[in-house]
């Protein structure tokens, strides 16, 4: 039932927004309708037309709140204007309304919003999660998350974004913002698995669910398929990614029998279909790299020349120093560590990476490959001091300790 409700949430919100032309209020009304369903349906059974039921309940909330606003205005002013808008149009058949999920997603990920606001709003308005659930996932108080969502709605209203699909050229651009938000939700959730992180794994699942929704809405966009494939091909490794004490296990040392083969096959199938459309983008390339890793039964079977070629392409398409960093690792795997270290030198001059822990961590790794243990230890420690990720710090300190002990 929860799954059904969350599938329906954006469709219902789209219909109610379309009807009342007030996104912020409609969003609140739909949340209330979802709550009402959670309370009533288990007792009274799922209605024959659940979507229509939700639209009706949300519309009633809208009308009620309009009426009470109206009553207040009347009390405040003797010049009570006769409003013809307090009743929803009766001639709309809920089943005939279009699916507005894509319009909603584009609106929730509008570039006027900061990434954190876009993510929060997307999870609530499109994902159908409650504010409490979102707050828990991001480890902030519910009141703070409620404000973040409400401000996001206000920013959208203030920017005057109409509730309609953007023009064709605009749509491609705006869809990228949606994909980026989903990618961030996935990354946020794709962490180790104990304690409060149980909630966060939920976020990775939610990101996959939303990516599936977008893929169903725009099946011809190969980058949407690429993102979904990337998520599946990455999430497939989650059971092998951490050890019993939550310690990170690098790709090369993971127990590959723990990888989820069903997710790998689905990801590869999606990716193959997307690549055949001939319009390669950054998500497809990242998915392709993940797929090459996933296809190797043992770490030493990894097709590094293939990965290097993919990073070459990816580097040409994106101006991201992290890509260059990973490219250097792939180059080291193919041509030896000195080639990788050479490439890192160019990155020392990149202001975006200066002082970044990742540069130090990769350098340490390549120095270790080259057999220069004292320098590797020093760089593992530099990286450990610079990272703001707890599991990574544990990992880096452990690497330095392992090398110091001569293992």
């Amino acid at each position, binding site marked *: 039932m929860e799954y059904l409700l969350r599938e329906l949430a954006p469709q219902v919100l789209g219909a109610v927004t379309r009807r009342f032309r007030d996104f912020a209020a409609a969003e609140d009304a739909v949340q209330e309708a979802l709550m009402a369903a959670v309370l009533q349906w288990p007792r009274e059974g799922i209605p024959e037309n659940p979507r229509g039921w939700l639209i009706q309940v949300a519309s009633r909330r809208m009308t009620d709140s309009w009426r009470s606003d109206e009553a207040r205005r009347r009390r405040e002013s003797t010049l009570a204007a006769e409003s013809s808008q307090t009743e929803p149009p009766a001639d709309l058949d809920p089943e005939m309304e279009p699916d507005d999920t894509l319009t909603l997603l584009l609106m929730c990920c509008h570039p006027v919003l900061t990434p954190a606001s876009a993510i929060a709003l997307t999870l609530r308005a499109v994902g159908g999660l409650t504010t409490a659930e979102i707050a828990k996932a991001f480890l*902030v*108080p519910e009141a703070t998350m409620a*404000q973040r969502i409400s401000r996001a709605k206000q920013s959208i209203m203030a920017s005057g974004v109409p509730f309609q699909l953007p023009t064709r050229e605009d749509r491609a651009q705006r869809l990228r913002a949606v994909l980026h938000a989903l990618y961030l939700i996935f990354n946020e959730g794709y962490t180790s698995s104990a304690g409060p992180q149980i909630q966060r794994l939920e976020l990775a699942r939610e990101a996959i669910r939303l990516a599936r929704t977008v893929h169903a809405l725009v099946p011809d966009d190969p980058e949407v398929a690429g993102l979904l494939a990337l998520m599946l091909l990455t999430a497939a490794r989650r059971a092998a990614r951490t050890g019993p004490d939550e310690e990170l296990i690098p790709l090369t040392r993971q127990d590959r029998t723990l990888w989820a083969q069903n997710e790998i096959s689905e990801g590869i199938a999606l990716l193959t279909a997307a690549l055949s459309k001939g319009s390669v983008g950054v998500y497809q390339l990242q998915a392709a790299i993940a797929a090459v890793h996933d296809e190797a039964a043992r770490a030493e079977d990894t097709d590094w020349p293939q990965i290097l070629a993919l990073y070459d392409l990816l580097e040409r398409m994106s101006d991201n120093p992290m890509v260059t960093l990973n490219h250097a690792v792939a180059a080291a795997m193919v041509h030896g560590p000195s080639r990788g270290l050479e490439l890192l030198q160019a990155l020392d001059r990149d202001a975006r990476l200066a002082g970044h822990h990742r540069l130090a961590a990769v350098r340490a790794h390549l120095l270790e490959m080259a057999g220069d243990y004292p320098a590797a230890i020093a760089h593992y420690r530099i990286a450990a001091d610079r990272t703001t990720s707890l599991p990574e710090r544990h990992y880096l300190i452990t690497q330095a300790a392992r090398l110091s002990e001569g293992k």
Partner: protein
Amino acid sequence: MKYILMMTGTKAGVDTYRAWSQSDVQAHFAFLKKLNHELTEAGELVANEPLAAPEQAKIVRVGKDGAPVTDGVFPEAKEFLLGYWIVDVESPERAYQIAARLSAGPAPGGVPTNMPIEVRQIMSRRTDDLP
């Protein structure tokens, strides 16, 4: 990204504060209340806790039998944590901005206290895949 903003001070500093007039104390409280409200409204406040007076502070270590050994007489010059704010912000610059606001809380006469605020990033749990 989350940051902790730590307000620190000495016992001597706390004693100065205790000598403030009622209206000065009220003005300072009103300022903090308003700032917390603003941070919540901005969707940034994660937590804010003031701490009990430094006189009640104890340093605890484990003794030989595993029982706690406490130490509680501190020199006047020792810096104590007086209270902290945890904020979830878009950039380090925003965290510094909030810290500066905290340091600008009104002392008697409305002049900023200029309290030092130590800003530290909180470790996250997220990681990317390692090579």
